[in-house]
């Protein structure tokens, strides 16, 4: 029963990792852009929520009403105004520009908010739990996060496979030049893709910050976790990203069962193993 518990807790943990990973997976799948600032954008969302909750008295989850549109608009502007210009230059420009953005966000937050650790307070839901048969107790909050991740992935699937804009995203991901020849304005599409990725980034940032303390330097580890989830799941597949998040969570839960200090390391090692044994991930889809 102990192992079942580890499996369940790990899977639920995978929910937040999947939410971290979706934004990264989207921007890579559509634009071949690996956003080094991704983790810092998650943290930025948490700080935006902090400000909103402090100014309006709203609880963090309700503050998403403001945080999501703000990050959406920011994402659109950053892609349209900055990142679009890096896509043609090869490997280095997008990598180094997003690297620069990462450093700017981290140090900007440090200057603005100081190095103090913060946490968003949602209330009693943070510690509520549900009892399952067999003596296993599930936290309501991790379950909520997992359901949000599931809903997010499902809605992206719907977007990609049932809408005209989703069709356009898939076409651009396949062959950006021919997509332009068919009348698609790639610049706008990339900006929209990044903005949608930011919706998930904002949700991930707020949900994560309710349960975990954060400070301006908390971004990079989130990027690594997102990256590991994407690689384990396989590039280009949204359901794969969810699976990758869950597997990462389970690996970490197994590590934590041995000793709390092994949790993160166990995740890294699982990533390493997948990298060596099956580098394209478990459910790869992207053509390169």
């Amino acid at each position: 029963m102990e192992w079942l518990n580890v499996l369940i807790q790990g899977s639920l943990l995978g929910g937040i990792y999947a939410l971290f990973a979706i934004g990264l997976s989207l921007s890579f799948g559509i634009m071949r852009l690996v956003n080094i600032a991704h983790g810092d954008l998650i943290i930025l969302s948490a700080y935006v929520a902090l400000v909103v909750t402090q100014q309006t008295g709203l609880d963090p989850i309700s503050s998403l009403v403001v945080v999501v549109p703000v990050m959406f608009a920011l994402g659109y502007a950053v892609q349209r105004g900055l990142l679009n210009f890096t896509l043609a230059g090869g490997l280095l420009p997008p990598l180094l520009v997003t690297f620069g953005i990462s450093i700017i966000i981290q140090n900007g937050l440090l200057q603005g908010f100081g190095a103090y650790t913060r946490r968003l307070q949602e209330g009693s839901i943070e510690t509520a739990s549900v009892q399952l048969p067999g003596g296993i107790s599930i936290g309501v909050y991790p379950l909520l996060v997992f359901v949000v991740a599931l809903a997010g992935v499902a809605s992206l699937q719907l977007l990609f496979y049932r809408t005209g804009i989703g069709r356009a995203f898939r076409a651009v991901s396949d062959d950006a030049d021919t997509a332009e020849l068919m009348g698609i304005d790639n610049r706008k599409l990339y900006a929209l893709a990044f903005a949608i990725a930011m919706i998930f980034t904002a949700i991930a940032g707020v949900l994560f910050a309710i349960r975990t303390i954060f400070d301006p330097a908390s971004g990079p580890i989130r990027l690594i976790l997102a990256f590991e989830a994407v690689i384990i799941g396989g590039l280009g597949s949204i359901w794969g990203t969810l699976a990758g998040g869950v597997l990462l969570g389970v690996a970490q839960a197994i590590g934590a069962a041995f000793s709390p200090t092994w949790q993160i390391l166990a995740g890294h090692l699982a990533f390493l193993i997948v990298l060596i044994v099956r580098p394209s991930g478990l459910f790869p889809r992207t053509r390169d």
Partner: protein
Amino acid sequence: MSLLQTKNLSAFYGDFQALFGIDVTVGEGETIAVIGANGAGKTTFLRSVAGALPVARESVVFDGEPIGGRSAHDMVLLGIAMVPEGRRLFPSLTVEENLLLGGHTKRAGTWNLKRVYDLFPRLYDLRHMPAPTLSGGQQQMVAIGRGLMSNPRLLLCDELSLGLAPVVIRDIYASLPSIAAERTAVILVEQDINRALDASTRFYCFLEGRLALSEPSKGFDRAAITAAYFGF
């Protein structure tokens, strides 16, 4: 007034000049052919008109408006559509999704999904298949249909016969009269000279980025074409 007119059109790939002062006209609803050996600049010419290559503004005039150098997606909005060399269907999309993608710009006109299926009935049965599973000829039909879905006034066809068996090529070309019937102008870039001349009213022959010959298609002396084609 002609639908499309290129005036002294020159095109470059970086420092390399691929086109040297090309003058071509296409009338409303006219089908013209562009022939020439490999590397003569035929695809470069189509890409310049389609907006995939930057060129001088006045060198491409469409409906009296200088439009050279506009982006490719703007050209589709204006009514210039491309059927690319090698088909270039979207592999992640089904046949029907590829066609619908062609209609992304929602330009008004007579072409829609049903009419494309009327033109190429075989595609209706294949409509939910992933594009890469189709044969070369079927893919070419999808590519043409995809181009038509944007209701273009000018359709640019790059090497329709590439890699296809003669009987398949015949079927593809049998669809061209229906396109011409809608008053859609067509530029046919072809290596198969006979097909190209049979399907067009006039032709241009390119040689090393320059215009070598420009004549009516019917009854023209083949020996002269051969000379111009190879630059004798």
